[in-house]
């Protein structure tokens, strides 16, 4: 089956004072129609930079997209003219961002912000139709009194309501791909669930394939069909969600799973991954996770040679020299 969206060897670099930083390093993944693809990783692992690069939304400069292909509907998005790409953005592929306070324009009404995405992609809409469609959209994401609230500004909306409005904007043109970048991270825990169910409802009704970026593994377990794990700008593991959770093939994933609280059994201290993510400017020749990896120990292969992403089992890729040993390592560590 041809994927709906296929990212191939995407590479993005930032030039900073101390050197060149490769924020996205040969990232490849496919998104199939109707599925939810979870992208997990620590802050700074390149999750957002990857999707922003794929749509060429990443600010250039300072970023430079060095290479790769992003195939969508038979076209490479990285080769399209800005004009052609604008027709894809907001119509075929739309985005939801993390913080609805800063990602909505404070000086435009919610109505104006919904209307502009409708008008940008359908110039034949009358003013009346735009308003009716906007009311419908806001209503569908559960904003009460939608007609009147169109006239309000973002600061007159609560955090949860703002994120619902953001979802309405993203769904306005029934996109075939929805990219949700940490959609609930900035929200109160009490309203995260509400916003998630709104997102889930919009997604199922429209059938949009979704890339869900998060560092919340619980959210991944609940929503994602497949998972891509990123570390230091690279994909280190990818596979179906249940496989990732039940038989991880990368020590970093084991670390992430170990830091999840468990419901059954005795409550133990939560495990954290020692150390911090590597400095992307000063990456050595070996595996970027090597210094924090308990499985690597003193093995010279890990410090000298960077592992490539290889098939570990069917549908399951891992960038670990010793991916065969990971599962038993996880059991020893008490993660599985």
């Amino acid at each position, binding site marked *: 089956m041809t994927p709906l969206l296929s990212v191939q060897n995407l590479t993005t670099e930032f030039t900073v004072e101390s050197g060149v930083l490769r924020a996205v390093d040969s990232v490849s993944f496919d998104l199939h129609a109707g599925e939810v693809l979870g992208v997990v990783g620590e802050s700074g692992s390149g999750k957002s930079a990857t999707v922003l690069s794929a749509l060429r939304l990443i600010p250039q400069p300072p970023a430079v997209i060095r290479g790769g292909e992003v195939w969508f509907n038979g076209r490479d998005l990285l080769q399209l003219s800005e004009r052609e790409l*604008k027709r894809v953005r907001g119509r075929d592929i739309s*985005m939801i961002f993390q913080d609805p306070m*800063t*990602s909505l324009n*404070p*000086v435009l009404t919610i109505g104006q912000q919904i209307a502009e995405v409708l008008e940008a992609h359908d110039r034949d809409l009358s003013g009346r139709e735009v308003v009716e469609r906007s009311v419908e959209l806001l209503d569908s994401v559960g904003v009460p009194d939608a007609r009147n609230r169109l006239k309000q*500004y973002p600061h007159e909306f609560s955090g949860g309501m703002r994120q619902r409005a953001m979802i309405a904007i993203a769904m306005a043109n029934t996109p075939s791909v929805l990219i949700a970048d940490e959609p609930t991270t900035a929200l109160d825990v009490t309203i995260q669930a509400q916003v998630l169910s709104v997102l889930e409802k919009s997604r199922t009704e429209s059938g949009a394939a979704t890339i869900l970026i998060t560092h919340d593994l619980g959210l991944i377990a609940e929503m994602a069909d497949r998972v891509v794990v990123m570390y230091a700008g690279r994909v280190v593991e990818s596979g179906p969600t249940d496989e990732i959770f039940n038989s991880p093939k990368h020590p970093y994933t084991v670390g992430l799973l170990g830091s999840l609280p468990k419901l059954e059994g005795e409550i133990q201290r939560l495990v954290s991954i020692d150390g911090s993510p590597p400095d992307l400017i000063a990456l050595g020749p070996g595996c970027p996770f090597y210094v924090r990896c308990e499985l690597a120990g003193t093995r010279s292969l890990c410090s000298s040679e960077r592992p490539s992403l290889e098939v570990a089992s069917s549908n399951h890729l891992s960038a670990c020299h010793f991916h065969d040993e990971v599962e038993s390592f996880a059991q020893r560590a008490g993660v599985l």
Partner: protein
Amino acid sequence: MTRFVLRRIVQTIPTLIGISIAAFLLVRLTGDPAALMLPPEATQEAIDAFNEKFGLDQSLPVQYWKFMSAVLTGDLGTSIRFNIPVWDLFVERMPATVELAAASMSIALLVGLPAGIIAGLKNRSWMDAVIRFFAFLGQAVPGFYLGLMLIVIFAVQLRWLPTGGRGTWQQLILPAITLAAYLIALLVRFTRGAVLDTKRQLHITTARSKGLSSWLILRSHILKNSMIPIITIIGLQVGAVLSGTVVTEVVFNWPGIGRMMVDAIYTRDFPVVQAMVMIVAVIFIVVNLIVDIAYSFFDPRIRRD
């Protein structure tokens, strides 16, 4: 909105009282008008008569009380030097100041705003570098020097334009450019900063992710969000140029209120100085009020009532 305006007007009363006291006392520190206006050989009787005529023989509180009660009835006093009402002097001079202010402000907006927007949008490009260089120059070169240089080049050497005075449009060009140079520099710096700041905000990425046209993003996302600092600086500068620009007016012999005020200070023409300071204060307050109302037009978060 009406309530907001009324409240602001009431709030200006203490400000105006404070300014009137400061102006009243400070101008009296410059010295004795009688010594300046009367010949050195004037008799004590003549000096006393002069002081009595202008009420300068009374105690300071009494003088202030008389000045303020006259102001409240619309009488700004009479010039000691010209012996005509200050209001008439103001009406005579103000058109020149307004003309120069309008001309220089228009040039500044027409040049400074677009240049600042381009520099902000294309920051770190060669265009940004060129614009910033000229903005730096415009702020660094003092007005009197630029004015004199323009006179030397365009009036003396090339003989294209007159050296000064007011009446024809040719006479307006050099003083307007001199004043505008500084305003442009200031406006470029603030506009560039505001646009750069807005451009980096997350909601601009949202706007781009919606597939909006570049023009729409510039107009209704970047510019609208950049307007607060820009209109702040415009407001301050409109207030400043409307209250007279002494250096430019002196260099180009432009008969505006700035020169009138400086002359009045030199000649210890107390009523003129006092009244003009009050008028300028009112101009500043009105311009600021307009700026505050404009804020709420551009930013709904500070909209009142």
